[in-house]
């Protein structure tokens, strides 16, 4: 009996620094999509990837050094918050790494045997947060120096989903706010897509932000964390 429990514990053991999320259903905040996406149970990093973690990655994989990455995979801002290609200097080593493209974020996660979360997965993990405080954070301009990761955990034990940086997701390119999505009579919140529910406006803003991104973009307040399928 005891052995069974020990075995069960080992099989279901969650790797350090990750937390299980779901299963559940995520409902898009965009009226036009009107869909519910089922999300299988998966693992998500408890914290965003930090500068020092990303520095260790570029030391191992020089293809992702600042100055070595082709424009196809990251724009000119790549890691521009750092003093040098291998020197953090002004930034807090324990702050989330930012100025990283989607391609770079994916390469990092891949190097850890992980992947980026999908939009539905990420949003499911982030559900239940206080909308007013998130919107207050969105309204601020990014601070010139980001603080360290490790804010208070949410109901799943996951930290910093709000309040520190925006985060890349695998399918950011599924958010479409271009002319294709424009229909007459809709509130023009984000190029024509309209919010289903005002209380979900924070989620809608994330949708609009993702819709404005390209995979090569690097931004001061955009970082990432990694996810993983449950074994």
């Amino acid at each position, binding site marked *: 009996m005891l052995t069974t429990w020990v075995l069960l514990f080992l099989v279901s053991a969650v790797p350090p620094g990750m937390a299980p999320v779901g299963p559940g259903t995520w409902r898009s905040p965009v009226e036009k999509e009107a869909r519910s996406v089922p999300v299988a149970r998966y693992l998500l990093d408890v914290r965003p990837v930090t500068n020092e973690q990303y520095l260790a990655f570029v030391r191992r994989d020089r293809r992702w050094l600042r100055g070595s990455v082709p424009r196809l*995979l990251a724009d000119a801002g790549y890691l521009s918050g750092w003093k040098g290609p291998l020197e953090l200097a002004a930034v807090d080593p324990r702050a989330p790494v930012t100025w990283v493209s989607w*391609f770079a974020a*994916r390469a990092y996660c891949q190097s850890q045997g992980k992947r980026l979360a999908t939009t539905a997965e990420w949003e499911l993990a982030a559900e239940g947060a206080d909308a007013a405080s998130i919107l207050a954070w969105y309204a601020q301009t990014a601070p010139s120096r980001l603080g360290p990761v490790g804010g208070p955990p949410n109901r799943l034990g996951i930290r910093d989903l709000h309040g520190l940086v925006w985060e890349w997701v695998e*399918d950011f*390119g599924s958010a*479409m706010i271009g002319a294709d999505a424009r229909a007459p009579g809709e509130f023009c919140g984000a190029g024509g897509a309209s919010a289903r529910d005002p209380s979900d406006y924070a989620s809608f803003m994330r949708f609009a932000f993702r819709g404005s991104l390209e995979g090569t973009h690097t931004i001061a307040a955009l970082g990432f964390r990694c996810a993983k399928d449950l074994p």
Partner: protein
Amino acid sequence: MIASMFFSVLLGAAPELPPESLLRLPGSFEDQQGRRLQLPELAGAPTILAMFYATCPRACPQLIGSVKSLLGELSEEERAVIRVVLVSLDPEHDSPQVLAATASARGLSAKTFTLLRSDPVSTRTLATALGVRYRKSEGPSPDGAIEHSSKIVLLGRDGVMLASKDGAADAAPLLSALRELLHSKGP
């Protein structure tokens, strides 16, 4: 010179593609004849690249139509050296058999047209590099429908993007870039 040729033969290496070449993107692909290939194998010809899916009701026939009308502007000799690569946004459903059926239904000869599918991760990689956005519609729209932006891209012989055309935009700039490429000896 001979020594370097010898070494590249020895290492089985294709001529080095520039860092900005789209053909350096990772992923394993299958064409409409079930052949497995990787993107670097497509280097060497002026290439028109677009993404589509087989069961697409509206946008994709239009996309293929505009690729065909682009080809229609060229002479037979010019057409003979061009490769058109159409990559599926729906790799789960677009098997080589489905791609072959699409090719024959739309009159896409294998001499010019290569229809490919990969896996979901490599598909997202390529689409993102091209600036193609897409999502599976779930809910009220028909099952399996994929909303996507339409983009036709011109690649040089080395896979570097030279020009592109979004949706219903004017094809003239793409066509002139294509002509210029066809009459240049460079990559």
